[in-house]
């Protein structure tokens, strides 16, 4: 596995603690080119922490992180921007890398916010800002995308469109995506690998594997399990009528 050229980032038994309190412990996972890995888990289960370990934001960690790319796009879950800065959407787009005008325009068009290009960042709504964040992350054509709840605050139709966009980007750029989401419905249809966290890895595998796992059922309930299964069925094109679950 370690000789695999496609690996972008790999965590081995990684953990992070603050003052002897473990935020997350013993996480092993890897993100490969063209694959989407989704982290799920209840609040406080260490999803964002795991993402920050993978990104190298947390440095004093237990275990190991091997990162094989510097071309990273990151959409953080929370972002506080200080409005003592006069910052337009355009300035934010070129924050970490100088980009061609056409790349900026393309990314902003893809997430549907091209009309906001010269607006002050502080004047955007929550959903608009979220779209700009996603546009910024994809505009630099990264090899690794880390998306921490990338569609929070986005309207329902926008949400579906943005998830489709994320899937499309993963295919077109052949980039690896580490995705954190609460929205099991929309996410699971596109995910290659699911890691279910609860302070540690409670289970992981393909969506169907995870759905069958008893620990997952205990954590999320029977209904959530059915959601995952249904998407797996849709993949296999064998589901018949709505709501009906057939186990393979």
């Amino acid at each position, binding site marked *: 596995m370690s000789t695999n050229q496609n690996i972008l980032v790999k965590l081995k038994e990684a953990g992070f603690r603050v003052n002897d309190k473990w935020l997350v412990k013993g996480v092993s996972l890897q993100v490969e080119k063209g694959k989407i890995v989704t982290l799920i888990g209840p609040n406080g289960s260490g999803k964002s922490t795991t993402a920050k370990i993978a990104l190298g934001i947390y440095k004093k960690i237990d275990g190991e992180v091997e990162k094989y790319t*510097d071309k990273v796009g990151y959409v*953080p879950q929370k972002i506080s*921007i200080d409005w003592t800065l*006069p910052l337009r959407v355009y*300035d934010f787009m070129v*924050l*970490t890398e100088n980009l061609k005008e056409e790349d900026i325009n393309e990314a902003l068009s893809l997430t549907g916010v091209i009309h906001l290009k010269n607006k002050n960042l502080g004047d955007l709504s929550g959903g608009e800002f979220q779209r700009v964040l996603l546009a910024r992350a994809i505009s630099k054509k990264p090899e690794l995308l880390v998306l921490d709840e990338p569609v929070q605050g986005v309207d329902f139709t926008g949400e579906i469109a943005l998830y489709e966009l994320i899937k499309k980007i993963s295919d077109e750029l052949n980039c690896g995506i580490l995705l954190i989401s609460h929205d099991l419905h929309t996410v699971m249809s596109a995910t290659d690998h699911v890691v279910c966290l609860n302070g540690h890895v409670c289970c992981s595998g393909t969506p169907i594997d995870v759905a069958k796992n008893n620990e997952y059922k205990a954590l999320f309930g029977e209904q959530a399990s059915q959601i995952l299964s249904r998407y797996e069925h849709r993949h296999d094109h064998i589901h018949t009528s709505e709501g009906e679950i057939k186990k393979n």
Partner: protein
Amino acid sequence: MFDDFFIRALFAGIGIAFVTGPLGCFVVWRRLSYFGDTLAHSALLGVTLAYTLEFNIALSVFIISSLIALILIQLQKKTNLPGDALLGLLAHSSLAVGLVVIGFLTFIRFDIMGLLFGDILAVTVDDLLIIWIGGALILLILKLIWKPLFASTVNYELAEAEGLNPDRAKAIFTILMAAIIAISIKMVGLLLITGMLIIPAAMARNISSSPQKMVLYSIIGGLLSVGLGLFSSLEFNTASGPSIIAASLLLFVLSLLNIKQSIKLKN
């Protein structure tokens, strides 16, 4: 041409304004005005050291200010005191120690007022060279670290995640702060240097819509303040530092009118 003390002072001021413009923007953006104050207060210690050891003032101030910045970083790591308390502690204790040391140096006549508030008569051709060469170096280095420094000012984690090494940029910026204080102390005086950093940048914030514009307006504001301040200093025989700062305050007040107008337009 540089025989005239006023021409020398004017050129020194212009050189300083070019550097305080962009640095001042970062001081405002990163909320470092008290940090700048602390470094400036510690400069007095640097000056006394320079006199005692017959050393170049700018270099000595630069070394002491950098040292104080290092001590601050260590104290932040090792104590539980809040940042502003540590800043106050270092600012006032280094100022006090500096003044006490002056008390011992009875064999040297000190122009305390000149040190605190700046003295245009004191600017020599050597000082001009230090200001222009040092200033050019500061601007060059700032340009090199602009991307990581600005990105981490907007959001530290984004800069770190996307591989920009914000910690290194921050450390270099701290050294640049010590350097600008070192080269401008004679002209503006140690009590007012932070004013020269903050007020033109604050004025620029009121009238700009992008970071680049804010830097540009901040430089222009600084240049106007220097010109206006020095001419009135000559005219009314006032200290150069306070005159320059008062001029920049005037520009700041004018920029407030712009805010009022834009608020009216919005409604």
